[in-house]
C-alpha cells in the first residue's frame, strides 16, 4: 500500500488498520499545517516529493521500527499537494499490547521521517512563498 496520498488523510482508517485484538494501546501522531513558522504567517503549504524514493525510505523506517519494537504495528500516510492551515500532512498510527512501546515507536517514526524521507514543503503566506530549509 502507498504511504503517499493526494487526498485528506483518514486517521480513523489508519487506526483500524493497525489495531489487533491483542493491542491495548494506540498512539496516533498528526502533523498539521500551522499558521506560522519562524515568525512568519503561513496560509498554506505545498508538499512535493520524490515519490518512489520517498516510498522506499518510509518502508525502510517502518521495517526498522518492526525490528526495534517487535510488538508494534505501524502505518503512516503523508499527504502531498497544497494543504491549508489545520489540515494534516502526516498521520502515523502505532498500536501495541502496551502503551510504552507504542509511544516510543510513534515518536521514532516521525523523528526519522523528518530526517530522511525526500519530501519538501513550500510555505505560502502574506510575505510570499519559500521552500522550507533552503538557506539562501
Amino acid at each position, binding site marked *: 500500500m502507498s504511504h503517499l496520498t493526494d487526498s485528506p488523510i483518514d486517521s480513523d482508517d489508519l487506526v483500524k488498520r493497525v489495531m489487533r485484538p491483542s493491542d491495548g494501546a494506540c498512539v496516533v501522531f498528526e*502533523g498539521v499545517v500551522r499558521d506560522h513558522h519562524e515568525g512568519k504567517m503561513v496560509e498554506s503549504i505545498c*508538499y*512535493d*516529493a*520524490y515519490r*518512489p*524514493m*520517498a516510498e*522506499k525510505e518510509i518502508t525502510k523506517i517502518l521495517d526498522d521500527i518492526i525490528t526495534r519494537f517487535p510488538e508494534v504495528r505501524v502505518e503512516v500516510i*503523508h499527504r502531498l499537494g497544497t494543504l491549508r492551515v489545520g489540515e494534516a*500532512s*502526516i498521520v502515523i498510527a502505532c498500536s501495541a499490547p502496551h502503551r510504552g512501546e507504542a509511544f516510543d515507536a510513534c515518536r521514532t517514526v*516521525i523523528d526519522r*521521517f*523528518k*530526517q*530522511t*524521507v*525526500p*519530501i*519538501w*514543503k*513550500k510555505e505560502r503566506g502574506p510575505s510570499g512563498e519559500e*521552500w*522550507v*530549509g*533552503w538557506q539562501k
Partner: protein
Amino acid sequence: MKVRLLYFAVLRDIAGKGEEVIELPDGTRAADVWNRLRAQHRALAGYERPPMTAINETYVAADQVLRDGDEVAFIPPVAGG
C-alpha cells in the same frame, strides 16, 4: 554515458524543469554534476557542498561515480512530516 537528472522542490524552481537527460564523460562523480549545475544556475553558485545525493532512489556519497542509465537526484533539505 547518459544519466537522467531529476529536479525537486527548490531545484526544480531554479532549473525550471523537473528532469532532463544529460551526456557525461565516463568517470563523472555525483559531485561533478552538482558543480555543473552551480555553473549553469547563478542561484546555486554559492553552494559548494552538494546537498544529499540519491542515485537510483538511494542515498549515496557525493563522490560516487555515475554509470550509464543512472537516475540522479540532488535532495534539498527534506521537510516532510
